[in-house]
């Protein structure tokens, strides 16, 4: 996708500037953009490495197991068909906890394992089951307690209150998740 969008952006911009007569500004902009990418990356080294370090500690403690237990009723509601599949339940809840803690890198491998476990009981191997569909939609909804990446970017950019958007993110995420879950529950009966 970006193999089409990226060159299109560049070619259109240069042509437009050529016709509009501000090609000089565009020329200066090219080098400015590369140095601002470097500047941002340098601040990312601090913020992103810091979070990754803290979250690595969380991953090694029993904190994950504790939250997993709290999620059990929710998982029963979302995945009624997996009532007797203990392994799938466990992997799904670990994926959800990793997502909640903002551990994207840990969440994906856990999620893929859950998909493989659910695939074992799938009668039609080339089609998603209801549970798999629900699981994917949940993963695209980005349920997060602490949006660590966004906070890291905001502090890199010199925000006065990098974490000041947490409440907004919670509300938006919950609305997105509820819409996704409802749509999935309705659509799975028809399609």
């Amino acid at each position, binding site marked *: 996708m*970006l193999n089409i969008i*990226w060159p299109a*952006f560049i070619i*259109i911009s240069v042509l437009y500037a050529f016709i509009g007569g501000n090609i000089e500004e*565009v020329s200066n*902009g*090219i080098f400015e*953009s*590369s140095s*601002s990418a470097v500047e*941002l*990356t340098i601040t990312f*080294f601090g913020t*992103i*490495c810091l*979070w*990754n*370090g*803290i979250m*690595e*500690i*969380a991953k090694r403690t029993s*904190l994950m197991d504790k939250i997993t237990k709290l999620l059990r009723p929710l998982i029963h509601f979302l995945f009624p068909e997996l009532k007797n599949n203990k392994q799938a339940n466990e992997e799904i809840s670990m994926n959800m906890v990793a997502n909640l803690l903002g551990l994207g*890198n840990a969440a*994906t491998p856990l999620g*893929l394992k859950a998909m*493989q476990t659910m*695939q074992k009981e799938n009668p039609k191997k*080339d*089609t*998603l089951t209801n549970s798999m*569909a629900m699981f*994917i*939609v949940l993963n*695209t*909804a980005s349920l*997060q307690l602490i949006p660590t990446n*966004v906070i890291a*970017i*905001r502090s890199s*950019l010199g*925000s006065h*209150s990098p*974490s*000041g*958007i*947490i*409440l*907004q*993110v919670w509300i*938006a995420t919950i*609305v*997105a998740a509820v*819409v*996704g879950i409802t*749509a*999935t529950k309705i*659509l*799975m009966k028809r*399609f």
Partner: protein
Amino acid sequence: MQIVHFLSATAIPMMIVIIIAYGIKEKQKVFDIFLEGAKEGLQIVIQLFPTLLGIFLAVGLLRSSGVLDFVIQLISPITNLLQIPSQILPLAMLRPISGSASMGVAVDIMQQYGVDSIIGSITSTIMGSTETTFYTIAIYTACVKIKKIRFVLAAALLADLAGMITSVIICQFLS
């Protein structure tokens, strides 16, 4: 509002303390583990850099050439009607397609309009509350060789749209 501010400000330090306290209670070598995780973070940032560079180039060109202003002006009647700041539209369109590209665009918007402005808050909220939908669906189905994804794309994009609209409304409401 003050409570919200207080909760936002305490959430992160509290979380760090709780995590470290748990690590100590369970007799983990917390500092060594921290170093390991931070080292992994280096890798993430290094991998992100080429994408950031490429996106900054393309978006920077769009902006300095005047194309972006032209497009924003073109669609502003629709966005005004829906009360959506048109400056966030490039983000809304890229968000489901590419994680690192949308991060580049988000940073560009926040630098341009101010990270603490309403547009900056909306941009942050969208980044925090949505995912790279296409990528997620692709890897989750590819790993089990599934071809028929039924309604999943529609449901996921609907959830993204709901998240984005909520971001716009809630940030304007809370500011």
